């Protein structure tokens, strides 16, 4: 372990200790109702009445002035350690800070929300969520700024609440990323029906690499329109088990323009190694997705299918049109909180560590496939030419087995064993070697 690693771990553990100590001084909701806010007296003016500002530590540092305004401090620290077999690139192994984020979220007059979040591990593009939200009605909210485009189930789940260390390959490679734009969204009867439609000015640089920041989604260019609709069709059937009533079905779609050049969809493995090279594209990129999730008590089951395709107008030899290049992904996953906590909301251990318990344990498994190729059948033999009509397909099949230990509501330790196998071993990360194991652990502090 390097000195840097030791130092980073020390910082992380210090953060955890501080958070735990704070939690111990203020009883958590499992032990007692949320603590009463601690009143703070701000300096008063001689000409105006004193403003009564309240503050609290639980579940995260927050100050507010009644319903007039509030501010919350939010952080997200994630450090990963990986072992690979076989080793593709020595840099894949060892400890790495995956996220070091601090943000502030606030609300004004119960109508306007805002968030500013900075990633301290990304000097080139440090700002993550920077947005303002106006709630007109449950049916109509408006958001502007920089935030994630509405698309997909996996993409909509916060990285700190994700069951797995890495999002599914389809989400990382195909869905629109976090960009600057505007969105209109709303919900009916809590979550029986939700909708979101956004327009974003995507500025993805195909030469930059945000792959491991998998909140970022895939590459998108120019103006991107993205939308998502979800329904809970069984929510009104009160006789059904809760997990069935909670079944949520989502449909997503996005369209953007891909710039002329070798900017097509790219297949990359869990650790970012290429297994399907970019091809020349020109025209639109269209992405569609379907997902279904059932969460009941301590268990969850999810399925998601995503397909994205790029037009290749005039990109063949002799400048002829080619069939689209596509990427298609799906996954099915399940999780179970062995210790019985409820998974419908944020997981809060019934008996946190150092508070008379061990924390919460969750086990999970996911199987996914990620396929790339050209969309139409052809009498031409398959090739890897970036201008080929019949692109030789390649696929990464991945299964992930995981366990998460929620020490308390802020600290989580995850372990994932990831197995990958490639259809075309000549284009696998190590040509000729078709299967790979990765073992990854994550230590997370988030509030």
């Amino acid at each position: 372990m390097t000195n840097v690693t030791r130092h980073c771990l020390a910082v992380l553990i210090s953060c955890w200790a501080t958070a735990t100590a704070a939690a111990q001084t203020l009883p958590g909701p499992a032990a007692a109702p949320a603590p009463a806010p601690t009143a703070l007296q701000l300096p008063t003016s001689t000409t105006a009445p004193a403003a009564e500002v309240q503050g609290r530590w639980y579940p995260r540092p927050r100050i507010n002035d009644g319903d007039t305004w509030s501010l919350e401090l939010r952080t997200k620290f994630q450090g990963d350690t990986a072992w690979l077999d076989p080793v593709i690139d020595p840099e894949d192994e060892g400890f790495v800070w995956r996220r070091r984020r601090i943000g502030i979220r606030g609300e004004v007059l119960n109508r306007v929300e805002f968030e500013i979040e900075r990633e301290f591990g990304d000097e080139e593009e440090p700002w993550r969520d920077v947005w303002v939200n106006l709630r007109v009605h449950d049916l109509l909210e408006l958001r502007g700024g920089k935030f994630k485009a509405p698309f997909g189930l996996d993409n909509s789940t916060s990285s700190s609440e994700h069951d797995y260390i890495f999002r599914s390959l389809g989400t990382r490679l195909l869905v629109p990323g976090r960009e600057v734009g505007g969105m209109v969204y709303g919900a009916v009867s809590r979550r029986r029906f939700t909708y979101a439609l956004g327009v974003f000015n995507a500025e993805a640089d195909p030469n930059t690499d945000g792959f491991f920041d998998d909140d970022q989604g895939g590459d998108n260019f120019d103006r991107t329109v993205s939308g998502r609709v979800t329904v809970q069709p069984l929510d009104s059937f009160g006789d059904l088990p809760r997990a069935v009533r909670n079944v949520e079905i989502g449909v997503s779609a996005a369209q953007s323009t891909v710039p002329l050049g070798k900017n097509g969809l790219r297949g990359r493995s869990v650790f970012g190694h290429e297994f399907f090279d970019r091809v020349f594209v020109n025209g639109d990129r269209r992405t569609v997705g379907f997902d279904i999730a059932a969460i009941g008590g301590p268990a969850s089951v999810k399925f998601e299918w995503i397909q994205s395709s790029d037009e290749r107008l005039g990109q063949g030899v002799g400048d002829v049109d080619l069939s689209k290049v596509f990427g298609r992904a799906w996954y099915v996953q399940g999780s179970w909180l062995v210790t019985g906590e409820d998974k419908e909301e944020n997981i809060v251990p019934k008996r946190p560590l150092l508070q008379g318990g061990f924390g919460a344990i969750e086990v999970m498994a996911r199987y996914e496939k990620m396929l790339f190729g050209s969309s139409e059948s052809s009498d031409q033999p398959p090739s890897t030419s970036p201008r080929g009509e019949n692109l030789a397909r390649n696929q990464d099949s991945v299964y992930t087995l995981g366990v998460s230990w929620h020490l308390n509501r802020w600290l989580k330790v995850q372990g994932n064993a990831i197995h990958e196998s490639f259809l075309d071993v000549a284009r696998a990360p190590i040509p000729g070697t078709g299967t790979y194991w990765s073992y990854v652990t994550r230590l997370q502090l988030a509030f």
Partner: protein
Amino acid sequence: MRAMFRVVLVTFLAMAASAPAVRAQSADDLFDSSTLREMRLMVHSTDWTELKATFQENTFYPADLTWNGVTARNVGIRSRGLGSRSPVKPGLLLRFDRYASGQTFVGQSSLVLDNLTQDPSTMKEVLAMQLFRRVGLPAPREAFVRLYVNNVYLGLYAVVEDVAGPYLQRNLGESNGTLYEYDWLFTYNFDYLGSNLDNYRIFKAQTNTTRSTFDLYNPIEQMVRTANEAPDESFESAIAPYLDLQAFARHIAVENFISDDDGLLGFWGMNNFFLYKREGGSRFQLIPWDKDYTFWRFNNDIFTRVDASVLARRALALPDVRQAYLDTLVAAADSADEPLDVGVTWLSLAVDRLAGLVQGAVNDDPNKPYTTAQFEAAVNGLRTFATRRGPYVRCAVANLSRTPVACN
């Protein structure tokens, strides 16, 4: 009814028999130097512009190739050459398996399209390789083509059999050994470069490239060290595990006959050859390459620059090797002067036939870096060489065992 059926059947069979047979194209057809066919490349317009703009780079671009009714799709093409690289009329390497694993074109995994920019006669390379083969030394096959890119005539090119798997298989019966292409970087005449194996990377491995530096270059270092340091009395036996000196002598003899100034005994040191080492063996085999800087002087001395090369000097000091060298010189002269018709020898006739074959294509070539008049002058120079080189060489060889006479 039955009689009518018989008539129809017989008529059908007769028609079928009289129809021209659709013969599968072969490498022999492709490298038939008596023909001048069209070869067409379809490339994306931006790729072609970029290839020409970055002609010094080795970036591959996809293309479709059509020749004589046969089309190969998803061929990788790139600019190639050393001094012959051109942004106007690029020399091209075609790799058929670049984007389609295992793809071949009439049995070839790769081809070279020589842009013929360094030889106003256009035919020196074709003639040189033919002469190598006529004296029994394997050499790449070549033919002329009119090359069209995106249906625009780019010029006259020579399609050259690449020294790759199919060539090795055809000539040596195997292709899993290690092939090295000599990569000219500086004037070098087989001197010992020390024990650092990286110094021998001028012999650039083309196959088995994932093997260790030791595996690839230790055999070459040992061969060069032996050539330089083995005592005279044991030189022949010491070098034998690495090189067939008789074959080496035959190779440089043909190069001398064709007055090659850019070969193993070139003006600027060694150049334009491959080495092949069989898998499990230690002996290297020479393969000639790029013979467009030849046929200069009919009275080229028969030992030109032999002393410049440590290997040639020591090899030709051995009587039997020297004799093989002289015998090959005479064999080359006899082959060039083989009478094919009354008063017509093979080399003279080959020059005339090739000149007639390519004359129109040269005239039409919009990108040739020489004039049609220069082409005709160069062909005339070849005619002179063809007429006088053989007699000169035979005379010079004979002078070694007689009171010398003037050879003109």
